[in-house]
């Protein structure tokens, strides 16, 4: 019984990522998309928080949204998986529910 959580806000703008990570149970999947992708990059104030989160949840980031913001995939924190829209669809299908943290 797993849930896919989607977060589309930058952690530097809104607290939805924090709220999501505080709520997501062990083994949950979290997909970062739109401005949410900023949380997946190295060298930011939330990098440690993301690395901690990887101990309990699986993190994914939408590749096309990284590219649209000029962020290279080699800037993604190790352990976070880059997926395309087909991968997003697979995640939605593999999990029982999709919860958008709008």
């Amino acid at each position: 019984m797993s849930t896919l959580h989607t977060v589309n806000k930058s952690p530097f703008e809104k607290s939805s990522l924090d709220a999501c990570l505080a709520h997501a149970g062990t083994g949950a999947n979290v997909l970062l998309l739109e401005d949410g992708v900023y949380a997946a990059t190295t060298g930011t104030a939330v990098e440690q928080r993301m690395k901690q989160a990887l101990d309990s949840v699986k993190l994914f980031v939408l590749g096309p949204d990284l590219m649209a913001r000029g962020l290279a995939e080699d800037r993604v924190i190790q352990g976070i998986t880059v997926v395309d829209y087909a991968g997003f669809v697979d995640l939605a299908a593999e999990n029982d529910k999709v919860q958008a943290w709008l």
Partner: protein
Amino acid sequence: MKFAIQINEGPYQHQASDSAYFFTKAALEKGHEIFRVFFYHDGVNNASRLTTPPQDDRNVVDRWAALAEQHDLDMVVCVAAAQRRGMVDEGEMQRNGKDATNIHPRFRISGLGQLVEAAIQSDRLVVFGD
């Protein structure tokens, strides 16, 4: 698998409609079924056939309409949200005494019950918004 898609934001203002479009397209390419695409709140503005973006920009409305044409998608606009924002079809024009319509023919106006039904009938409801 059956998916229902909900879009809460209008075109060009927010990425939600673009994200939803690419998700829907990818799901269809993988052989999944899209039970319904429901446009809610400012999302109703995705249905205006009068939309005319510059030629070198994507046409969000036509793009949805083309995908709907190709895959026979049911694209529903929330009636209460549409009335507030001046999204009008023939029925609404007559009922509210308006002098024009502006909805693209690939979309239809209906009630929130259509969203509830989509959520019940589909395996997954995926929401895109602000």
